[in-house]
């Protein structure tokens, strides 16, 4: 094998953010041409920071960067792009009101005179999407897309700009297994065409499967560079976390109680008449974790939104803790002890400019514990913020810092802290461990199981099959807005089987599906 060229090299990178957090403490990092290079580390280890430095979005406080052997100061993303570096961010950077094509070509539009050549743009984007096997309509508006589709647009955008070195910051956090497999094939094809890929993921099996080499960082410091064949998943998580992580979840058999959510003949459609949820009926009971498996965009998110009052439903009924919720607003539903971990933390899950403390209190500030006659008890609030940050291991300088200064996984932990600490009876968890590192995932899953053991109900929506299978007591599979399968015992199905139902290849009989209502 020929000696591969080093396309990127970073020496002694130090980064201090303007709030005084030192995110990188002298990191060395080196990437060879044509490899897929993993970057791993806990939440807040400094991965995204390092990547943003390569992409010219953040300037290092000190340290040197060499691109193709030449010392370079990457002063802006424009420069990075012209050097052939592309980045797909952990949090989306798309303009919601524009179409897919408009987003992809933004800033590099094909022109006809002074005007944008829309036809050509659409064609180019379509061709590109075809070439990389990413199904998205160039004319769809970003705001109408699912998270998984948005992810594809982000990747297209980077490729469209001619990236040769592609940075993917947790691209699979939002993808289903099938989509992930597709993506991996694409990435491998890109690799054989000479592209270089830097890949960040908290899913170690993916990292192991896809990547050639791995750099590990912990608390802003390099923990070494390894050939993938020399390390096991356990080794990696040990190096990242500094202790053994148990990835298998142990739980005792469920003790099922009374129903908490009763959904009957539910139909939800959008403003343009598109059907999201089609005649869905099921029952969730105390002491049960009911998983909803499905490829993203098959109605799960709309279902969750209707259950929590964020979206109106057209017909059918939803009973929550014994109460029909059609006339309820979000506050009433929350008052029934329902909490909701939203799918997209940045748009619905937090107020970015407010503190961690304030974000964990947004739903309970009016409770007597925290305020009397509308006046806030400062001491109590401060203490609560500290407790939350500690309990849920939110890595921060202190809980008074803006929440958007946290790393992605730590923002997710803060969201979980808010939703799980309100002593809910029903938890609607949409991708609860998205972007959370192995250690914290273990912790969150244990927490959910403990709540279920305390007779709470959990509706778990996740595209992570591992998670659905490992956590759920029973599983519903949704395809195209309908329930296509119900498995009363999640322990008895395989990933493969589930996958067939998710893709709509198979469908259970009416009577089997009806089981989800438990005769009610």
């Amino acid at each position, binding site marked *: 094998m020929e000696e591969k060229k080093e396309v990127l090299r970073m020496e*002694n990178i*130090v980064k*201090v*953010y*303007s*709030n*005084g*957090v*030192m995110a990188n*403490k002298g990191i060395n990092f080196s990437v060879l041409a044509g490899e897929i290079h993993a970057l791993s580390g806990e939440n807040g280890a400094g991965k995204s920071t390092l990547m943003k430095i390569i992409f010219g979005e953040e*300037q290092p*406080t*000190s*340290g040197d960067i060499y691109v193709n052997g030449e010392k370079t100061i990457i002063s802006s993303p424009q420069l990075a792009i012209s050097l052939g570096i592309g980045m797909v961010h952990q949090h989306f950077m798309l303009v919601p009101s524009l179409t897919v094509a408009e987003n992809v070509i933004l800033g590099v539009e094909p022109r006809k005179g002074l005007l944008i050549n829309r036809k050509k743009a659409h064609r180019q984007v379509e061709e590109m999407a075809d070439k990389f096997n990413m199904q998205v309509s160039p004319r769809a508006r970003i705001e109408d897309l699912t998270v998984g589709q948005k992810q594809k647009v982000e990747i297209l955008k980077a490729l469209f700009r001619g990236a040769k070195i592609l940075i993917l910051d947790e691209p699979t956090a939002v993808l289903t297994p099938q989509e992930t497999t597709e993506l991996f094939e694409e990435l491998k094809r890109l690799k054989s065409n000479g592209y270089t890929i830097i890949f960040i993921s908290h899913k170690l099996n993916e990292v192991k499967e896809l990547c050639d080499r791995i750099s590990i960082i912990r608390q802003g410091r390099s923990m070494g560079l390894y050939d993938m064949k020399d390390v096991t998943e356990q080794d990696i998580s040990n190096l990242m976390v500094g202790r053994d992580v148990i990835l298998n979840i142990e739980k005792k058999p469920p003790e099922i109680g009374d129903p908490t959510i009763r959904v009957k003949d539910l139909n939800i459609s959008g403003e343009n008449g598109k059907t999201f949820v089609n005649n869905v009926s099921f029952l969730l009971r105390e002491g049960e974790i009911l998983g909803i498996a499905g490829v993203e965009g098959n109605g799960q998110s709309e279902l969750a939104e209707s259950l*929590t009052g*964020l979206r109106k439903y057209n017909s059918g009924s939803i009973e929550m803790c014994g109460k029909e919720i059609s006339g309820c*607003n*979000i*506050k009433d*539903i*929350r*008052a029934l002890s329902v909490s*909701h971990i*939203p799918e997209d933390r940045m*748009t*619905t*899950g*937090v*107020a*970015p*400019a*407010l503190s961690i403390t*304030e974000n964990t*209190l*947004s*739903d309970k*500030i*009016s409770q007597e514990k925290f*305020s009397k006659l*509308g*006046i*806030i008890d*400062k001491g109590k609030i401060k203490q609560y913020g500290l407790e939350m940050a500690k309990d849920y291991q939110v890595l921060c*300088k*202190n809980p008074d810092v803006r929440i958007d200064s946290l790393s992605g996984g730590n923002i997710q932990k803060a969201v979980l802290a808010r939703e799980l600490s309100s002593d809910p009876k029903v938890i609607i968890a949409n991708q609860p461990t998205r972007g959370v590192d192995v250690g914290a995932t273990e912790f969150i899953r244990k927490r959910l199981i403990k709540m279920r053991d305390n007779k709470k109900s959990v509706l778990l929506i996740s595209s992570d099959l591992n998670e659905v299978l490992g956590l759920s007591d029973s599983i519903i599979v949704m395809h195209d807005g309908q329930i296509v399968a119900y498995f009363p015992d999640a322990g008895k199905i395989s990933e493969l089987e589930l996958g067939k139902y998710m893709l709509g290849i198979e469908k259970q009989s009416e009577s089997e599906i009806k089981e989800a209502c438990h005769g009610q």
Partner: protein
Amino acid sequence: MDSNKRIHLIVDMAKLMIAILVSCGLVTAIVLGTSSEPMNAFFSFFIGPFTSFRRIGNIVEAASPLMFTALAVILIFGAGQFSMIAEGAFFIGTLGAMMVATSVPLPTGIHSAVALLVAAAMGATVALIPALLKMKWQVSEVVTSLMLNYIVQFFSIYMVSYYFREVSSSSLASIAFLDTSLLPVIIGGTRIHAGIILAVILCLLIYFLLFRTTFGMKLRIVGNNPKFANYSGIKVTGIMVASQVIAGALAGMGGGAELLGMYTRFKWTSSPGYGWTGIAVALLARNNPLLVPLAALFMGYLNVGANIMARNSDVSSEVVKIIQGVMILMIAAEALLKKWKQRMIVEAAKAETGMKGDVVND
């Protein structure tokens, strides 16, 4: 206070100083360029406001209305709304106060209080209009508030000229206010009136409202991410409307206080524009109600200086507008002093992490 907050404070202060110095430099340049007696103009502008007790009083008097409108702006913008209604609410407030002051005989004290409350109520009502239009039909509050400001101005002047006009006066003036309605002067030898006390108290109250009440917290959440507020179970539109109504009441009350504190008749033929300057003051105060008095005093000083300069020299008072513009630019400019700030932060962070050596290269 942790090192980081300290650094931010130092840099903010330094920025303010620089903004002030640059403004002074600018005045110097303008004066040197346009005046035939620059020394005189300088003196009038910079020192003039401090040359007599009465003039110092003028600064405080000029600050008073700005404090009300700045608070209104802080509330509206804080809830993520861009209604410019502070201007109109202020002016309708003067109309309301004028009507009570001229036509409703009441005992001293109570009379002013009622006049101010009516002013506040009218301000609130005017501010409610763009809020409701947005709530019902998603009409942009920017546009409606701007248009409404004109309507309010002409309506008020119409009311004065047709129903409350002093017929014996050749210029536009209302009939005289009843003595019982006037706000008392609190410092002899100046015209500093009770309105300023009210303004300072309101600054404290609004600070409290924003940072110590559940309403304030909800308001800030709505202002930052309405989607998230909705998801948290907060009544988003309610908060948006409430913030504008309270803001309208504040601005309206400011109008009333200005009228009853400084005048004995309504004499404006166009709106004095305190609503606009209020935006500048809010920005200068970094949206912090506790800094509003300082920011308003500074703006007051500039205005008084400019007036004195206009009277005593050949430089016109419009200079102040230029200065205000430049100062707002400088204070809003994030990049200013960024390197210096970053360096301090890096040092502090290194000290904390225990790292040595000079690794700064930017």
